[in-house]
């Protein structure tokens, strides 16, 4: 089952590339493939047994027996919602790319390959397999940015690649040390029987691994690839990048850094909290300096990912569940913001905010979409972002009071930049140059509607998702408890 979810996009992509006769067929086949993946992912999610702490839907085969590398897939409460999120955004990414005219077949091919890579990361339970998927996602993303992007696309693609390559080299080194010490890449075995680390110290390995995740999340000061990559990427790539790829970083911290090194996480949580608060405030302040709509959203992502790190660093059940919720919520909210930004660009032919304005009367539906996503981003109750943030704060306040209060000011800043952006892009008097543009079409509205549904449902009845994260994180919290503290 998990194999099907992971490889259906890749296999489908190859078949589609070979067999599809027209761009139209390419689009519909891609939609069909991503929809099937979404359905399968939802089935997996819905059938998870929350009382069972072990990974489920397990598929486990010896792969390279000489090195004890396994093909080991499984999901639990932590990964199942992320699997669903990836499926949802996969569909959305296809729909939002409906108008791609340039090298259409290749575009959808790489988009589907990208989905395989991301999905694989969330279900791998073997370190080497995890690493392979982690790397697989790089190539399609690099190509999507450098071929279908805008602005300084080659520069941004290269920067993204170099950043990720360098940091994942460190991750690989960390994984090899682990293997060298324990003789296995099996994450579950490593978690249950922590090896004594050979060659270097346990914190050394922790930080080698963390480096890759911190770049991905991203954590200040490892974030500068993100504004460039997000800004210059085509909409679908921004959606996947912000929606799920950043979450791979947080997921890695949960699944590998904290699960395998709970003591180290405890010892260095002060450092993590500091970086978290800096990310929140620094990202938010930087937003106010931006004039490009996509770049603005990119910096807001950095700020919001800071909340994730704050929740993680609280190292408690409530805060960590909040962090996971923030991953999920931000995945839908920011993906939606990027879709809106992409549509604005497509229709108004500019993303330069001072040139925009008064779009509300020309495109009321898109305005509503932006407002809903924006309000969710600023943590308005009844939407998913609020649930995540209040949980993070409830979890972290008892441990890091001052840091939490500082981070709360991020909420004021986010209200400021969201409303300021809405004002400058959508509200105010109409501008004559936009007199001819129209509102979103049905195909464009569909993914936006899906995101709105996800944001509102989770905001009003969060137990749909929190119950899973709660169950999935409980074993990790137990490890932290066992680590003393």
């Amino acid at each position, binding site marked *: 089952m998990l194999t099907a979810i992971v490889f259906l996009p890749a296999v489908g992509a190859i078949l589609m590339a070979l067999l599809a006769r027209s761009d139209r067929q390419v689009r519909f086949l891609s939609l069909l493939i991503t929809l099937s993946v979404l359905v399968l992912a939802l089935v997996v999610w819905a059938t998870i047994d929350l009382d069972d702490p072990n990974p489920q839907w397990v598929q486990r085969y010896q792969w390279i027996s000489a090195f004890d590398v396994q093909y080991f897939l499984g999901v639990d409460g932590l990964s199942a919602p992320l699997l669903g999120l990836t499926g949802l955004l996969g569909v959305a990414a296809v729909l939002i790319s409906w108008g791609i005219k340039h090298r259409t077949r290749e575009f959808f091919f790489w988009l589907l390959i990208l989905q395989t890579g991301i999905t694989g990361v969330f279900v791998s339970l073997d370190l080497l397999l995890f*690493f392979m998927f982690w790397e697989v996602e790089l190539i399609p993303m690099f190509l999507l940015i450098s071929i279908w992007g805008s602005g300084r696309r080659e520069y941004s693609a290269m920067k993204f690649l170099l950043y990720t*390559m*360098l940091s994942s080299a460190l991750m690989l080194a960390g994984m090899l040390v682990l293997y060298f010490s324990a003789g296995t890449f099996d994450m579950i075995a490593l978690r249950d029987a922590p090896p004594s680390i050979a060659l270097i110290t346990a914190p050394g390995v922790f930080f080698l691994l963390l480096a890759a995740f911190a770049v991905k999340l991203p954590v200040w000061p490892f974030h500068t690839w993100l504004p460039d990559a997000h800004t210059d990427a085509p909409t679908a790539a921004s959606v996947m990048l912000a929606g799920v790829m950043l979450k791979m970083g947080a997921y890695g911290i949960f699944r590998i850094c904290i699960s395998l090194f709970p003591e180290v996480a405890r010892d260095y949580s002060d450092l993590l909290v500091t970086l978290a608060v800096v990310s929140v405030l620094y990202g938010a302040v930087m937003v106010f300096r931006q004039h490009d709509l996509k770049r603005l959203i990119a910096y807001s992502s950095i700020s919001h990912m800071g909340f994730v790190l704050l929740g993680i660093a609280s190292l*408690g*059940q409530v805060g960590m569940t909040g962090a996971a919720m923030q991953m999920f919520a931000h995945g839908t909210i920011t993906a939606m913001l990027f879709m809106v930004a992409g549509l604005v660009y497509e229709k108004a032919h500019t993303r330069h905010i001072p040139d925009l304005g008064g779009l509300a009367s020309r495109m009321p539906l898109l305005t509503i979409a932006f407002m809903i996503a924006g309000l969710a981003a600023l943590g308005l109750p009844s939407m998913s972002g609020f649930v995540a943030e*209040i949980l993070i704060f*409830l979890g972290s306040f008892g441990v890091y009071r001052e840091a939490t209060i500082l981070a709360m000011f991020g909420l004021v800043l986010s209200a400021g930049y969201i409303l300021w952006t809405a004002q400058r892009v959508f*509200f*105010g008097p109409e501008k004559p140059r936009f007199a001819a543009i129209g509102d979103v079409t049905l195909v464009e509205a569909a993914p936006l509607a899906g995101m709105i549904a996800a944001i509102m449902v989770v905001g009003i009845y969060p*137990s749909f998702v929190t119950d899973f994260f709660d169950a999935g994180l409980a074993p990790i919290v137990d490890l932290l408890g066992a680590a003393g503290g």
Partner: protein
Amino acid sequence: MPEFASWLIFLLPLLSFVLIVGLRPFVGAEWRGAGVITIVSILAAFALALTALAATIGNDAHDLGYRPHDWLTIGPLVIRVGLVMDSLTAVMVVVVTGVSLLVQIYSTEYMRGDKGYVRYFAYMSLFTASMLGLVMASNLVFLYMFWELVGLSSYLLIGFWGQGKAAEEHPRAGDAAKKAFIVTRLGDVGFLAAIVWAYVATGTLEIAEIHAMVAAGAFAGVGVTWLALGIFAGAVGKSGQFPLHVWLPDAMEGPTPVSALIHAATMVAAGVFLVARLFPIFEASEGAMTTVAWIGGGTAIFAASMALVSNDIKRVLAYSTISQLGYMMLALGMGAVGPAIFHLVVHAFFKALLFMGAGSVHHTAHTYDMRFMGGLRRPMPWTFATMLVAGVALIGVFPLSGFWSKDSVLHAASINGLIGGAEALYWIAVLAAGLTGFYVFRMLFMTFAGEYRGGAEAEATAESGAAAGPPPRRRLHESPWIMVAPLAVLAVPVLFAGLADLPWDLFGFGAFAMTGFLTGHVETFSTSVAAVSSAAGALGIVVAYSMYVQGLLSPSVLGQRLRPLHTLLVNRYYLDHLYEGVVVRHVLIRVLGLTAEVIEGQFIERAVNGVALIGRNVGRIPVAMQNGQVQAYGAMISIGIVLILAGFWIWG
């Protein structure tokens, strides 16, 4: 009353919102049915609210005792949703649904022909639902959700005319909306921190359980003070108290019925309600009580002073609202919950009336600038009469409702020696009462007395700088009955609501029924306090009369004489300038933003490029990559992995 019926009080307006939004694609932007749906749903909610009030009065504990429901469970944390229906909530739901009902009826005429008619009623329904949820929530997180949602509705309605064609006539609407949301959110950070702190300190988010712990002394000391101050920060933002009052005058950019309902009667009073709801926490901390009393008393006089010089009728009323909310806070700080809520209730009536009256005046004069009004008493007898009644009640003239409520507040200030400087606060409040008398009658005289000064046409002439010719004659008229009727209906409680809290029994009313119901104990009444405040109010009226009717003292000459003071007041003590010009534009965007930008460009990016350069020279890998052969690089990585693994296998 079954719990489900109480839920309906807030679900009905919510349903109205959902229904209007759902129907919007199928109807025109000016579909009149939206108003009907809203009014019917709020009427039903009003009926249920009255039932709830009766049930609460009939209940011995004055609390219907609903149980909360689990919403979210994570490890040790349980967040519940639940309703409370006690004396405080019962009174509030009646006020909110009652005023909202009248405002919606008024709006059907006031907003007729507006391009956003349907959207308007959708927002109004959303606001009413959120406000009702706020006063009924039994849990801090649940309360906070509605607290933010009323803020959202307020934002949407202040900025109602900030888009499309309407934005050309209302260029400041968008900024005002944004300012309201952001300034109140600053206070909300304190409130949110307090909620989180309450959970960390007590392990619960249920208001009743926190109260029980505070009452039992299980949660005491400086922690309680911080908790109270955090909550109060939220209240300061929402209720426009100093120093977060700056958004409320600007909020007058919204449609006038919105100002009446949200920015006078209900939402801005939510801060007062919040302190009353969580009063046991405040009571446990002398420091918190002193802060509340001083912020309240200070705001009462501070805002009244700005009302003295404003020429915009809505802004006069806005400053007055801030000032009256200050009175309520003062009462709370003095420990007088009953008088505070009593004043909240009667203020909701007369201030909603005054705003709707201002809207009625605008309907015929097409301006809010009082310099271009005058002489409207004859063409608008109903508007004049009802506004006069409300204005007199606002000053606190015997025997109108405002007299009894304001006196109960002042009486509390005069007898309470609990906090530092109580006596000074009493005299501040008396002085503010005098200022109230002045600005209310200044407003009434400028609007209704003398000769008509030309309305919007004259304003346009004055702005264009052309020589002021004789104002063009337009037929001035009273507003349609559907706008006047809500004014007349509201005048009834403005006149007689005092009966609910007379110091003696009269026809079955009185003997502090209202404050007694709210607090469970009976107040006292002081004739001397009433005499002093009445004298202060009367003095204010006399001064206004001599300046604006008799012309004994010219306002412009007085302004010249007291130029520094006048300039200070007209510029609102320069606080807006400080916040927007200095804090936001300079400190946040210039200083912090530039610093971050320099860090980003000069340090982080340079370091990154340095690392990249090393990689380029040492590895020469980028040569391959620049040919676009990333696949090759991926393959190299894979080969590298295999080599490393082989190395481990052979030598490891």
